[in-house]
């Protein structure tokens, strides 16, 4: 068993999966016996933790009676039987209602469609996309990202919606707005990167000036080499600086550097870039990773992530397994 358990309080220990399974199901018996022999001073703590687990697992919750159980099943079964008979009874009426509503829905769709046609561009996992907007601004979409705008009005308002991450090179002109879940970015003519994923909202300004606004109307103006990072705690925007080594972000050239990022974040990026499914062993999500991987070769990328952390990995088709 792991050494860190020696620092655990009874409450911490009682919340540990390995420990709970040992107490309730006698799993990991050998490991725990050995651990106890090594750390005899932990005995009182283990005893208390064991009491906590046993007491909680024995707590009597109101269960369902046998009669209640079969009664409820009969109810479900009756409802199912009733459902399956219904369409037969009202066959013609049902058909009529369906036809009318389908026609109405179709008419409504056509009408709405004429008002606003939404253009949606998606970069799936494993691909990046470079596209030009109607007014010739350029967008590079990172893997697993999408943008959407109204085709009819984009020329006038230059408003689009982003999910995921994209790098923008905006042709000078009227204001250009990127809406995301975490906030809004407004610019005149400039190049900047927006990341909006899993509660993160980060904007980096490469050239020109960028205005960033969150839901609470907090505002930041960024100039070249500045970035805005949304703090998880209170959603506030924080000003930070970065060095724009090249004039586009690393990811646009297939490089993914990380500095003290939780492994789960790194893995999500790997999954998006290579369109793979990664199985991470429990407890590894929060290990911090510093390093980089590149697109091109999955083997190398996985190696570059696991090697510095002394982790093992195996790749089978589209599935990567990472373990201690």
């Amino acid at each position, binding site marked *: 068993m792991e050494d860190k358990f020696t620092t655990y309080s009874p409450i911490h220990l009682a919340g540990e999966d390995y420990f709970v399974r040992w107490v309730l199901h006698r799993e990991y018996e050998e490991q725990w016996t050995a651990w106890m022999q090594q750390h005899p001073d932990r005995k009182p703590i283990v005893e208390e933790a064991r009491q906590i687990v046993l007491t909680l697992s024995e707590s009597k919750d109101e269960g369902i009676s046998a009669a209640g159980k079969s009664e409820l099943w009969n109810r479900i079964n009756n409802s*199912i039987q009733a459902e399956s008979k219904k369409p037969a009874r009202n066959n013609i009426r049902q058909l009529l209602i369906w036809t009318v509503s389908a026609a109405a829905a179709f008419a409504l769709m056509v009408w709405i469609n004429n008002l606003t046609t939404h253009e949606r561009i998606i970069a799936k996992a494993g691909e990046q996309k470079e596209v030009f907007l109607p007014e010739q601004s350029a967008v590079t979409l990172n893997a697993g990202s999408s943008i959407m705008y109204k085709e009819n009005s984009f020329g006038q308002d230059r408003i689009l919606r982003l999910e995921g991450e994209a790098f923008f090179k905006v042709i000078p002109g009227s204001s250009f707005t990127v809406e995301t879940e975490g906030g809004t970015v407004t610019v005149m003519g400039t190049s900047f990167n927006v990341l909006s994923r899993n509660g993160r909202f980060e904007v980096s300004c490469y050239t020109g000036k960028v205005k960033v606004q969150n839901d609470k109307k907090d505002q930041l103006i960024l100039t070249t080499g500045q970035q805005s990072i949304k703090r998880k705690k209170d959603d506030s925007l924080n000003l930070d600086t970065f060095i724009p080594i090249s004039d586009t972000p690393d990811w646009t050239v297939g490089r993914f550097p990380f500095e003290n990022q939780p492994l789960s974040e790194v893995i999500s990026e790997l999954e998006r870039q290579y369109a793979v499914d990664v199985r991470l062993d429990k407890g590894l*999500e929060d290990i911090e990773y510093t390093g980089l991987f590149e697109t091109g070769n999955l083997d190398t990328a996985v190696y570059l992530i696991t090697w510095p952390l002394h982790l093992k990995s195996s790749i089978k088709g589209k599935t990567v397994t990472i373990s201690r």
Partner: protein
Amino acid sequence: MEETKHWENLKSGDINALQELYNHHISALYKYGMILCRDDDKVKDCIHDMFLSFWANRSGLTVPSSGKAYLMVSLRRRIFDKGPKSILETTPLEDADIDDKQTADPETQWMMSETEEETQRKLEQAMGRISDRQREIVHMKYIQQLDYEDIARIMSLNYQSARNLVTRALAALRKEMTLILLILIVLM
């Protein structure tokens, strides 16, 4: 696995498979539902609706990797969607407790020796005093005995937050139990 087979048979329209799944999970589901809302009717209604919708949408079902976790998360959503919490749910547990135990007057209760039953009763009281989410996660961890991965999925938390929530819940429980103990001693 047998469970996977039932899900697959359900997809192809076998009502016996639905009943197998029901029989296999109903006890745990009902207990969990009662932790979320202390309302027998509501829990049964939600379970009824849930199995009905599995049947109605059977062809589009994806076979879940953990059937138990999948059922729990579906039930949870249904219970929370079904409007405001019932009055019963917000009533602290100990009130209901007194009703159950009208035969034993308070004095005899204090006199009762520290039996296992007594510990369980104190625990029940303490469980009534911790937060809803703490109660839910303690139930999932120690009664349903799910691992953190499934718990996190059901409660839409990440692994670490689920872990932290258990620690906080246990700390709160311990505090409450000590408090109850103290009150008992003072009253004696």
